[in-house]
């Protein structure tokens, strides 16, 4: 261990001047690590593919994966560590909005570019930090589109809303509720649960006696899978809906056959539908030996966008290493056709072409079937 530390110190001590580092920050430990891992590997893939190009420009491109443990405090500490390392020019992360929001304040201190693959909370970009961008959609698109879909396509007259009392889950559930009430769908309940628990019978008992047409869940897939399984066990036949927290293979693993019929909105399209996406999934499988996660392609695209910006900044700088501010300015100008679709940022850093996709799980497998593709504000 001591030798290891010494190696770290010497390795870091005599770092070459022309190094550019790309960091991924996502939870690699804890219960959300499978999604965090998917982001990390997406970033790693993009970095590996761009190494040659940057070598020609005279730079050694390095990948530094970081673990934020889905904890805001750890996220901020990692952010401090990253801005201290002047070679880091791009951060791709985080998974959780409540981690991304305080961490991005730290990145903003030195204009370190952050491209978020997965943060859907409105506040991430609504603060108008010049260094913060995201390529996915927003909760205030997802929730309302979900409500409209429930009312218009599922013909729901009433909903029962459950959320996991997190920034993400409650946020998206709130947006769903507002829209549902606005378009005349009756909201029969709005209840919180605790993530990590596996017994949701008491909340479901309420849902059962209130007989809603739709149960909407704002939260992540483990609880969602368990909720739908227990709902069916209690012979609740209402549609089960959720947002992109459900967009994971784990939902089907956990809910089994009860996953059939689940409808979810997501900011992440099914990349395996397009040829580029299929190729990406195959490359990913060949490289890492596992299937892509929901945000793998988003991590990959976010990285590529950031790297394009770095490249543009290097060129504008006559081959010299650009300052962080230059990179973040360039990032806003990037036009990119990614695996997840076209990307270009508005003045807040939101993706102008972000879409909301609605999926229904029609047979017991992930991902579900795309049933609607919606763009713009609902």
């Amino acid at each position, binding site marked *: 261990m001591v030798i290891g530390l010494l190696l770290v110190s010497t390795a870091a001590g005599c770092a070459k001047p022309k190094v550019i580092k790309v960091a991924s920050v996502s939870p690699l430990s804890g219960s959300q690590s499978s999604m965090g891992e998917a982001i990390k590997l997406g970033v790693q893939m993009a970095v590996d593919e761009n190494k040659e190009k940057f070598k020609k420009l005279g730079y050694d491109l390095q990948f530094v994966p970081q673990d934020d443990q889905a904890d805001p405090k750890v996220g901020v500490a990692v952010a401090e560590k990253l801005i201290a390392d002047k070679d880091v020019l791009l951060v791709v992360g985080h998974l959780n909005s409540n981690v991304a929001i305080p961490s991005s304040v730290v990145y903003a201190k030195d204009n370190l570019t952050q491209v978020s693959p997965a943060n859907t909370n409105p506040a991430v970009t609504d603060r108008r930090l010049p260094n913060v961008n995201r390529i996915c959609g927003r909760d205030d698109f997802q929730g309302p589109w979900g409500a409209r879909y429930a009312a218009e396509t599922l013909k729901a007259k009433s909903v029962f809303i459950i959320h996991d009392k997190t920034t993400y889950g409650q946020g998206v559930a709130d947006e769903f509720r507002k829209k549902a009430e606005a378009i005349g769908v009756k909201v029969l309940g709005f209840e919180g649960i605790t993530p*990590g628990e596996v017994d949701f019978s008491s909340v479901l008992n309420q849902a059962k006696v209130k007989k809603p047409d739709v149960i909407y869940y704002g939260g992540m897939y483990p609880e969602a899978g368990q909720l739908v399984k227990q709902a069916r066990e209690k012979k609740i036949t209402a549609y089960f809906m959720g947002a992109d927290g459900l967009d994971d293979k784990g939902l089907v693993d956990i809910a089994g056959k009860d996953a059939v019929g689940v409808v979810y909105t997501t900011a992440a399209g099914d990349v395996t539908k397009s040829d580029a996406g299929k190729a990406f999934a195959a490359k990913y499988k060949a490289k890492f030996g596992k299937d892509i996660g929901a945000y793998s392609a988003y991590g990959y695209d976010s990285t590529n966008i950031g790297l394009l910006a770095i490249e543009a900044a290097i060129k504008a700088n006559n081959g010299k290493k650009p300052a962080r501010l230059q990179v973040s300015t360039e990032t806003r100008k990037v036009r990119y056709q990614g695996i997840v679709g076209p990307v270009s940022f508005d003045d807040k850093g939101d993706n102008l072409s972000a879409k909301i996709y609605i999926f229904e799980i029609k047979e017991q497998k992930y991902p579900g079937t795309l049933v609607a593709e919606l763009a713009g504000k609902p």
Partner: protein
Amino acid sequence: MHESLAMLPQVLIDGLTLGFVYALVALGYTMVYGVLEFINFAHSEIFMIGAFAGTEALLIMQSSGVLASLPPFVALIIALLFGMAIAGLIAVGMERIAYRPLRGAPRLVPLISAIGVSFFLQDAVRLFEGLWRNAFYLSTPVLYRQTLTFSRVDVPVKTIILVATCLAIMFGLQTFVNRTKLGRALRAVAQDQATASIMGVNVNFIVTLTFLIGGALGGAAGVLFAMQYTLIHPYVGFILGIKAFTAAVFGGIGNIAGAMVGGVVLGLVESLGSAYLGILTHGAFGAEYKDVFAFIILILVLILKPSGLLGETVLEKA
């Protein structure tokens, strides 16, 4: 209002189910505390390991095709025994490595060690399952799909089995502690280690036995839990363990019947609280307060009767 009354029976049944799980886990805390006066903080992880061991047993039987040919009852017994054995052995090993060297030290010392064990085991299971199955959220194969319906109340068969098994285990434990020679030795050590030792009781053996039994009970609770809720992860024991410990203190720690009463009451409180709080307060407070509910009642009981529901009044040593 009538629809909220309509769900009452279902709420009570769900509360009872949860309560029996709490009770079984609480027994592990209570056994160790009764004998060693020590909070075995890692007991929640023993529970979790039991759940994983039982689930693994079922998954292995399933993938090898044995499960389909076995009657569910036999599969359940195999899973239970396997879960209990693994959990009991780990509990014994844990005592040997992390607690025994600390016996006699101030009580915070083994408590911190137990917290260390708890962290360690959570990630160790995760590491193992990650390497073994490349996933650490496991779905437990369902053994009993049937549900009995009494007018408007649904009672899954697995729930009946859970409650029956819990009652049988508790009755067995009560008999063992009160009617057998080993049980008498156990009680003697719990009362006074020094005197028990003078009377020829092998204290170390009894302590090991305590951890074995407590661990096996935790393991059994884990298997039954996995069967009931069919989803487990390495962090599943943590919150549940805190509540089960609450239940043990609630009922009077060191008291076997107390653990059962405490567990069931806590389960009911939680279930009722989360079902009715929202209705009673018109949405101002909801199910998210159920843990607060449980803890507040605990605090009240402790203030009014600090030794718990069934605990004996403790005399202050002068």
